[in-house]
């Protein structure tokens, strides 16, 4: 699979982080979204989406049978609105909302919406790129199913969902420090550090990692 030509990303502000154990090759900067093969016809709902919202779709990808629409984070709401209400799309079942953390990238998180239509029985994945503190519109208004899913993404990644009815941590205790599923979060968690200073063990830990690298 040829690496999709990607404009070189501006080096993220924090120095590229090498994991604590022996430094791997440079951390990957994003999933290779393969462009759809030439002979593969665009499904109708993607074409109508592009027609309805001209600037919304930044890239389309097709791989092992899944269609993926990559959109800028700002346009999530109207794309979601369209996909749900458009007669030929009618994606009424939001089966999953999740995120992937690509630390070296400026827009760190890939927020992924896996949608399914119970009427047409087809599936699509919508992907939006969002920075660490960048506000992301919550789609709970469109799909109530996304309520807990977004809460978990916030709990695990710290994605800043705006307009969410009840944005609290769902799995971790309310006063937990840090977002566990980020790549720079230590696998073994706070460990003994939690006992000494439960409030800011994460900063101490990350400072110590920095010190190791120098």
């Amino acid at each position: 699979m040829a690496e999709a030509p990607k404009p070189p990303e501006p080096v993220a502000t924090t120095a590229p982080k090498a994991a604590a154990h022996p430094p791997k090759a440079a951390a990957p900067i994003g999933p290779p979204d393969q462009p759809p093969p030439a002979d593969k016809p665009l499904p109708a709902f993607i074409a109508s989406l592009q027609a309805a919202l001209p600037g919304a779709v930044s890239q389309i990808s097709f791989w092992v049978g899944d269609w993926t629409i990559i959109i800028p984070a700002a346009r999530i709401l109207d794309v979601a609105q369209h996909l749900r209400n458009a007669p030929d799309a009618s994606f009424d079942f939001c089966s999953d909302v999740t995120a992937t953390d690509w630390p070296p990238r400026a827009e760190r998180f890939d927020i992924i919406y896996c949608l399914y239509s119970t009427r047409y029985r087809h599936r699509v994945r919508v992907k939006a790129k969002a920075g660490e503190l960048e506000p992301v519109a919550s789609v709970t208004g469109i799909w109530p199913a996304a309520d807990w899913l977004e809460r978990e993404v916030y709990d695990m990644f710290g994605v800043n969902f705006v307009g969410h009815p009840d944005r609290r941590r769902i799995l971790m205790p309310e006063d937990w420090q840090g977002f566990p599923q980020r790549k720079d979060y230590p696998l073994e968690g706070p460990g003994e550090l939690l006992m000494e200073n439960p409030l800011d063990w994460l900063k101490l830990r990350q400072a110590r990692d920095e010190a190791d690298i120098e």
Partner: protein
Amino acid sequence: MFDTNELVLNMGPQHPSTHGVLRVVLRLDGEKVVDSDVVIGYLHRGIEKLSENRNWTQIILLTDRMDYVAAAINNVGYCETVEKLMSLEVPRRARYVRTILCELQRIASHCLWVGTHAMDIGAMTVFLYAFRERELILDLFEEFCGARLTYNSMRIGGLPLDIPPGWDKKVLEFCKIMDSKIDEYEELLTHNRIWLERTRGIGVISGPHAVALGLSGPPLRGSGVPRDVRKDEPYAAYDEMQFDVPIGLAGDTYDRYLVRMEEFRQSLRIIRQGTEGIPEGPIVGKVPRLIKPPAGETYHAIESPKGELGYFIVSDGKSTNPYRFRVRPPSFCNLQGLRTLIKGHLIADVVALIGSLDVVLGEVDR
């Protein structure tokens, strides 16, 4: 003594009928539930974070521990997603055995469900009958993969080992026994006046509302939405099997009960077709010794007894570990519907509704 009309009751994590460590904070007006807050996370082991530091075959063990009531189905779901990533071709015999194992697992999970659901509403005997049948299934699994709960029964690309000789005869034997046993459960419950009174009209949810809430599996089909991943996106050998998808009409607890009881029979039908029609042939496809899927990401869903179980896996092509491992647990999304379901009901109904959603906390908290 206290102001009886505004009471906050804590159906705490240790409550006997919350199927594991689930906490429901109920705001009550007398006996009626005004509002509730479902608190989860007591069984969070960070399986997703763990699996990002394990190689592809080690993760199969982790998937056992999520929905520990239907472990084989988790294995099959994970292996199929990785096979989809690597676009591997699984031989027909392996696909048949996978289908049989999934359906056996569905019956075992439904047995546990019918037992605990009836026990919550007071009928103690069904619990013992259901577990007697579940034992038979566990014996079958023990013969196949040596374990009774966490099976580790799949390998990426096919089966770890072929089915022992005579296993399929034992499965057919089990199907014959199970047929009469389901009638026994139905005899005790389906036309029982008190059971009808405790379950009919409780926790009614309409089809579109259920879809919007993200319910899947029996809770969704109980409200009349014909959504079954085995039929819509057939995987393993489901496309070669004839079976129909039971659908409820009213969307209340009784319909969800009927849907699951009918699923018992459909699963038996599939198992019979599967075991009689097992083709000969290899049990593992062409799998490289060291599994390194190409860079990319995919989402693949299968039908677990609780609903649509989805795996979203991102591989970066270079390392032997997945870059991102995400599981869409059906119990998590079904549990989200609990809050709207119990609004306006009484405490005794909350217990019945938790049972009717068939929630396993290991899967909810991951």
